[in-house]
């Protein structure tokens, strides 16, 4: 936000520092999953034991946000509320089916992270509202999530695309029982690749040609923007490929997990 102020895009009359509000630095387990207060920093969350083992993809995404300075002091709430289209974190949070809790001081409402950012730098937050916390559901059995940040030029820049997939296996074997495929950073908001995810259901996850089909379907479910990070057609192509790679990675980890478990 200070950048926007320096560029003269924003000129607020008042700025309120909410970082030290104790209610917002919450970080706890609940029966339904994890609750992350809006003022928790990326680094705190990344290094929290509750994240490291159970939400590997989220930990990956947290390590890939901006740079160490942003991760050290930047907060999860700030990340989402900024509405940055070239995002990392919202992509994986959405794949995990997380929700954002918005408060206006007296009432709270809950919005899926998937729909939190409406457009470039434009979120669900209305004047007088505050992002209070993010709720990440418990990881269901036989399921896992994978996240990929793709930078098209250097290793340290805003992503040209981020993809996250969450998949759940049937009781036995490699048949996909449930899936969520989310693409971020390519356009003005997150894209839920529903059709592609549906195609994945009742598919054997080691069937490469079916996975290719999922990738093809995902390509057509996103609406990328032409920019310095890539053209529309390039971003489509890459996302199709990365979705497949993410599914394979998630599957591999699930197999390891199941084997460990057995």
């Amino acid at each position: 936000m200070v950048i926007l102020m320096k560029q003269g895009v924003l000129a607020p009359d008042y700025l309120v520092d909410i970082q030290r509000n104790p209610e917002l630095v919450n970080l706890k387990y609940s029966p339904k999953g994890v609750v992350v207060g809006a003022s928790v920093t990326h680094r705190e969350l990344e290094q929290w034991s509750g994240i490291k083992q159970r939400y590997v993809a989220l930990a990956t995404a947290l390590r890939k946000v901006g740079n160490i300075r942003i991760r050290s002091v930047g907060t999860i709430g700030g990340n989402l509320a900024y509405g940055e289209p070239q995002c990392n974190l919202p992509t994986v949070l959405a794949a995990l089916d997380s929700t954002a809790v918005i408060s206006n001081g007296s009432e709270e409402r809950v919005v899926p992270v998937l729909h939190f950012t409406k457009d470039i730098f434009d979120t669900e937050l209305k004047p007088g509202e505050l992002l209070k916390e993010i709720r990440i559901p418990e990881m269901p059995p036989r399921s896992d999530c994978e996240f990929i940040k793709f930078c098209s030029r250097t290793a340290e820049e805003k992503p040209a695309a981020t993809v996250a997939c969450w998949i759940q296996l049937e009781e036995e074997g490699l048949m996909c029982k449930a899936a969520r495929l989310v693409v971020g950073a390519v356009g003005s908001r997150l894209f839920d690749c529903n059709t592609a995810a549906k195609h994945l259901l009742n598919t054997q996850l080691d069937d490469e040609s079916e996975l290719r089909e999922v990738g093809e379907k995902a390509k057509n479910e996103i609406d990328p923007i032409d920019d310095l990070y890539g053209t529309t057609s390039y971003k489509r192509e890459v996302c199709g490929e990365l979705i497949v790679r993410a599914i394979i990675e998630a599957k591999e980890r699930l197999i390891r997990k199941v084997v460990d478990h057995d």
Partner: protein
Amino acid sequence: MFTEIPRLEGVGKVTGSLRYTSDLEVTGMVHGKILRSPHPHAKIVSIDKSEASSLPGVLAVITAADTNRNKFGFMQEIADKQILCENKVRFVGDEVAAVAATTIEIAEEALNCIKVDYEVLPPVLDVNEAQKPDAPRMHDKGNVALSGQFGRGSILEGMREADDFLEADYETQRQAHVCFEPRCCIAEWDATGNLIMTTTTQTPHTLRQEISRMLDLPISKVRVVYPPMGGGFGNRLVTSMLEPIAALLALRCGRPVKITNTREEEFATARTRYPFKVHVKSGYKSDGTITALDITVVSDNGAYNDKGPAVMGATRLILNHYSVPCINVNWKLVYTNQQPCTGFRGFGLPQMQFALESHLDELAEKLHKDPIEIRMKNSAEEADRKCIKTVVDASGFMKKRGKEGRSSDIILRGIGIATSVSSGSGTRIYGHNSSGAMVKISEDGTVTLITAAVDLGTGAETVLAQIVAETLGIPLEFVHVAGRDTNITSFDLGALGSRTTFVHGWAAKAAAEDAKKGVLAAASKLLDCDTKELEIHRGIISSRTNDGKRTSFEKAARYSTTRLNTAILGKGMYVDDKAVSMSLASGDMGETTRIIFREGEFAAAVGHCAAVAEVEVDKSTGRITVPRYWAAVDCGRVLNPLGARGQTIGSIAQGIGYALFEEITLRDGQVINPTFVDYKIASMNDMPEINVAFIEHDDPRGPYGGVGLAELSIEPVAAAVANAICDATGIRFRRLPISPERVLFALKGSSGDQSLK
């Protein structure tokens, strides 16, 4: 002495206490800001500065009417730029007016109050468009700003000797220097009308000449002071108008004026590397010997002339590099309504070597030969072949080449080689290349080297101090370096062309030798013996014949000053007596100015290098990484291994950016990526594992056997990477930067980059 010596100025840098120009404030100082053109091409109908002038805190507002309207060029023969635009603006960012105010904020507000009425003209944004007969003219003359030719032998004969030909087009982009310290200067006039210009410059003495020409001042009235600088890389060879504008504002308001470029101004107006379009036609024999190279270079000059002639001049070094008997290079620089370009590390060689070293691989491929054989056959010097052999052996090139790529794996692997040559001594293009130094010995035995060398951050001062310490036989701690002021230092061309270690090294050595005579004269009196029997080692002066006769450097210095009444001051010169044989002359040919390089050896000494890059290409995204890189560098004797390795690795980092992602992108004449977010330089995580080998030997041309190396290693990077990508994918990329997008679509067979297979 010639070991890994840490930087002399290093403590200042790691403690944050070293003051750069951007850190300086002068009592009474106010701030200048420049109003720049928002249009690529427009007539200035009128400028109304009244509102800006009356703003509280505004001390001066100037336009072309307040200047002497002199046209400027680094060579006066090619002058085409006024300090502030008078009738026309020619690129987005062109200087239109300027303001001095008590704060930067007020100066910015004042800029918004200046009303300029423009009549927008159709812009010329492409070199091909610009050369069409009906293209809008940007200056009084035609749009081909400068042109020239050089080479050797007869191309016709060379082509006649050939069994076959290969033709290809290569293209490079605008690369930004991205100096971390922005351009900035403080202009101050003293009571007697002398101008003191404290500034970020690589070329203080030629800047002094430029300012004197622009402001109609005698050279003696201009004093350029140059504090430590946060990078240069060729960006600060010529004034970008900051200095004359600051001087005029300071004169107007009677206060020192500081102007600092914003980062956006830095990216969008402070000049870039010249982008080249290179057409290469080679004639060759079936054994791989090239008989003729016919090369045409067309470059976007941008809106005004800058270092173009010198950039093209540097490409003459291909004559040293290849043994090809017939070479012809025709070049032209074409005006467009875009940001002007300037010199950048390697001058024109990174561009030219991308084309030629890619071409060599294409030739090898066509002849079913390996790229090493082709290079060995056409290399002119044993030093090049030694470098090639070193990197080939170290990298296991022959084992890896053509083996790892083209697999069904998601990652394709390839390896590629390229070579280059660069001046290690500065060039003779200007017709003179000399400089001088002084070595002062204080009464306590400490030594001050007064040098005209400019240390942009390269470590030049440290190497020069090492040379002085070695020559005098004293520990390095005795030596200080001073200068940084054109009123003190000898005339010099500046820090460019990897000339500092060479030119200033020789001058410093000569000055130290001269001073040493004074010390020995004092010691001989003190010890009552002949100077001829004395030697200095680690600060101790002793007699070679009489063991008992010894004293210290310090005592001798004190004795000379206080007893003999003789202050010790040595002076030394480097004189390149062949430099006059090589210079550029311009001839007005009506529509275009032709630049003629006179005959002669281009540089007093050259360095050589060969590089091998390994790449990994991600088949599903086209993303390229360079995991490993080998460089073999011949710069004679390495005088400071720490600095030499740092220069080499730093060059490679800039070369990787050049090859893969760095590009100033213009749309409708406007730079659309003028920030660190949108213009990317290599980060730590883009760097390969790098193995640098120095082929050390005493080069008799250089001081203590060493020659300059700062530019060498950037030159072959892009071609080595492109050749490796071709090895991995079978696709030849002839345009930089090689973006993942182009790679992916080429892999899928749907782009302009065509497979050779």
